[in-house]
């Protein structure tokens, strides 16, 4: 199981690949702020499916769930409790 630091590192790598080298706080908005795009959201979805077994077709998908490192971590914790 990966932790918050891994999620942070992964999101930071997505930002870097998008040409965004700015600092990233865990509470920073990623999608609503426009720092990451829809295709990055797809990458995050696949990351969560592969590493945390989250099935968005079951729980429903809302971009709010993955809009920050904090939100993603909270989602993984909820998923861990449910599984």
């Amino acid at each position: 199981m990966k932790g918050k630091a891994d999620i942070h590192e992964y999101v930071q790598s997505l930002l870097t690949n998008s040409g965004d080298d700015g600092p990233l706080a865990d509470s920073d908005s990623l999608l609503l702020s426009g720092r990451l795009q829809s295709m990055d959201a797809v990458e995050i979805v696949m990351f969560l499916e592969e590493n945390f077994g989250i099935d968005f077709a079951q729980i429903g998908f809302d971009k709010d769930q993955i809009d920050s490192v904090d939100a993603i971590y909270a989602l993984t914790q909820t998923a861990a409790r449910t599984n």
Partner: protein
Amino acid sequence: MAATLAQFRLIPRLETWPRCVSFAQTAPGRLTLLAAFALGLRFFLPDMPSVLSLTFLLAIMTFLPEYRRFILAIAPIALVVIQTIHDPLVLGLTLGVIAFGILLYWCALRWPQSLFGQRPVTFLLTGFTLLILLACAATPRSWPYSILWSLVGVMASYLWFIGYALMDRTSQPARDLTLELASFRPLWGSTTTPFPKGAAYLRRIEAQNPEQLAIVQLKGLKLLVWGILLSLFQTFWMYFFHAHLRIPTSAQALALSVRGTPAAWHLRWASQILFFFEVTLSFAVIGARFISFCRMAGFNALRNSYRPLSSRTIAEFFNRFYYYFKELLVDFFFYPTFLRYWKGHKRLRMTCATFVAVAFGNSFYHLARDWQFFQKDGFWKGLASYQVLFFYNVIMATGLSISQLRKRGPRPKGLVRGHLLPVSGVLFFYCVLGVFGDEERLYPLAVHLKYLASLFFIHL
């Protein structure tokens, strides 16, 4: 030097200046902002009464933000009543469609486990298709014919707004429905693509305190100024290239080729390149106009067009050029497909979702938007008139799929490999694709293909 140039901004970042933000929170500051915005709005709106009434509504939302949602919900309905009062049928149908949208939303909330509650958007889009089929089957010049096609017209203009409301049903909080109503017909204007998406998005980006409101309003004013500058540039562009240099528009160049008197090769290419820039400019202007007003109303929406000409991949351009349309395709078609199907096959999954969104979704969007072709030609002939668009969408979907599947990694460095080459490739793809971007649907696909071949010295 390069860093200084990169930092240069034509319009200063007023929203980052603390004194400016503080001033924008005071009564004189707010009045100054509103007056400046009204002046800018006059550039886009033809009459002074419209400017004054919209500015008055903005003033209420600025000084009494607690009434913002109420005004945004009620004012568009009042405008619809004023605009269609002379046509009771359209007025009745419009109010009926709004009520129908609210009913659908309520049903989806009330019975989330029902077949409709689980797939409300599918029901909506299928229902609209059936409505078009029914209208096509009606006898011309009969009263059912008139009513059905009027209903198709009204429904088409509300389709994606109602769709977003249905899609947002699971978002929190969904108890206050005023923003749902506001997003059915935004006060700031819109195309058939909702600017900026639905009520759930508006809730997330709404200014929560005077400082946030001041910042977002300053950004709104800046965007309006940017829109005006782009619009002036567009006017100059059209005059300089088409009136002064007499380069034909892309539609004119195609028509000349069809008539057997084609323009010179370099003029055909020039018209194609100009067409690409003109379309890009148009979407930037219209987006700036809508989103600037949205920001003045207190919603920190992202821009519709953001540096599209700096895109280094086909997918990046698609994202930057017409953001809210891309979001529509992603929200309604891409995500539902991607999240449900082909989960074990990463590449197939991505390609399938892209084709559903761009080849099918984009086609469906245009079929719904340009329903008049069905009314004019009947269902099958009307459908056949979209052949060029279908081809355009398949090529676009292929380009986007390849662009997305290419391994993402650190960007190449250097001016040539990092910028010039990838940007040129993207612009070339969209310039060539523009050959099939004619929305008049005057010629069959074969004519467009022949024209494309002639650009590469192949004469069919």
